């Protein structure tokens, strides 16, 4: 019983953290690519597929 509760507790702590990390990643990429216009990021082969 305690283990299940502990797992639930861990999950409830982990999920908001995942959400935060996701939002930070999206925000940082936006700042780097659109605002700062970083050529380093623009030129990554990952993005160079864009026509």
């Amino acid at each position, binding site marked *: 019983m305690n283990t299940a509760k502990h797992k639930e507790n861990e999950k409830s702590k982990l*999920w*908001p953290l995942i*959400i*935060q990390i*996701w*939002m*930070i990643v*999206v*925000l940082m*990429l*936006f700042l780097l*690519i*659109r605002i700062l216009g970083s050529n380093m990021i623009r030129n990554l082969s*990952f*993005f160079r*597929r*864009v*026509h």
Partner: protein
Amino acid sequence: MLILALKASFSIVVLGVAALGAGAWIQDALPSTFTRFDRWACAWLGGFGLLSLALFLIGQWKFTLTTIVATICIAVAGAARPLRELLGSIHRGWRSEGQIPRVPLIVVLVVLLFTCAAGMAEITGGSGSDTVAYHLLGPKIWLREGIIRPVPDNSHTAFPQTAETLYSALFAIGGTRAPGLFSFVMLGLLLLASASVATRCGLDSTGAWWVAALLVTMPAVYAGTTNCFVDGLYAAFVLVAARIGFDAQRLKEWAMFGMFCGLAMSTKYPGLLALPLLIFCAIMMRADKDGLRFGVVEKVGITVVAACSVSAIYYVRDWVLLGCPIYPPPPGFAPICSPKYLSPNVVAQFHSYIYQRGAGLGRGLVAFLLLPFNLTYHTSNFHGAGGIGLCPLALGPLGIIASRRNSFAKMMVILGLLLTVVWFVTQQESRFLIEVYVMGAIYGVVGWRYAVSNGRQFSRLLAGTIVVLSIAYGLFMIRRADSEGVRADFSAAFARERRYEEIPFLESFEFLNREPSVRKVLILDRFVPPYYCDKDYIKPVGQWGERTLPGGPDPLEVLERARDLNISHVLDVSSEIAPFQVKEKASGLTLVFEAINQRVYRVN
């Protein structure tokens, strides 16, 4: 300027009231679960579509100011009761609720006002601008000729014409500025449709306002809805079709679903591809609720019949007049029909243009999986028109997770995915995907709520920053794109400068339009936009290579027969693509006007 604005505004008010009248009956045919707001939104949008359809049908016979005004008057007469009810409910709603969230309200109002101001500016641009090349070319020529017919020198005027027919009515009543000003109504209709879907996805009215704020600040949505583009109206029809179809129970509700699918098909060709997807999702929704029964066949049949009845006129007309129901024929269609005015070579060139332009963000599975990233970050690299902001990527996935128990919201996700796949494999033009961007905004707001409810202070801060940044970035991009139009409203000198800069060969058009002896103009260069010519004209070779005269003669061959064709003047230009075509001392022609890279001759 003030008189132009008043005239244009008057025509829009009249058309808006007429649409209320034309769509009043729709309210009674909607599912019983629809709120009063949903009913008004669907009825008004549907009213615009039906009014356009009525004008288009009448226009096949006669399209003059008299027939337009008579049609609109009949619709306005039907608007008395709904108008009274609408004003009453707005008054009651204003007094009882009075809690419209201020920030999104201000954002929406700012963008709508900006759209009005930008829309009031004179339409400018060359043949590269779709607005000038065909969205407004057709309406102008229909009014001049008194009948609605595709313009032979631009095959794109044969596209389905719901929005363009409304533009022509606006032209006739409100003058040349009215279609541009109408953009804010288009944007408003899209917001109404989006709000209806948003509330059905579980958002309250505050959430729907935030969806509206995110949407109006998505540059791609703004670009596809304003400047006389038709993509926003198309997206609104698709969204309302889904809204009705996913909740349809009775046969007449399925017929209503079909009608909105038909209106989408009457606005843009992608509506043909959206129809089976919408029907598939509506069936799945029905199966999810009640299980799959045989009765669904009848309902699907009613839907298809309603959709085809509404849109048939556009396709049958093209088939009869131009030899192909979808004109110009898309890839794969050419072998089964023989399109008038288009040689096989021209059709092949058109297809290669579609393939090249439609490649967008690339093909293949990796490109598809990268779409969310590229649509968010690399929109300026293709025809992305500035992007869709951050919220769909940052908060949308959270919204989808949060909506997993809402069957309507789940089905909207499936529909969005299917529409994206079809868009991806056909033509990747960002504004063709507006209906999916609307879903992105809705799930963005749902996800924002979810992130706030699941997280701590820091999550709220992050989600809030994303929303603020998204809106601010969108406002910046929109301001940058259309600020010249707004400036032209307030500065006559700048408006004049803008005219001369952006309208190609303006001096010649001004000469031809003011000279009373000009009866019919021969335009030799295929890239000269005839939209600016107020006189009758012949363009032997159209923008896409259309051959508009029997036998498909070249411009110089037509020049030899100028007198037989009753041509009074010839417009010859030198552009980046081709030099002057008339030789210095051509017999039978007298040079009557000359400016930089442009010459006008009188036929002796």
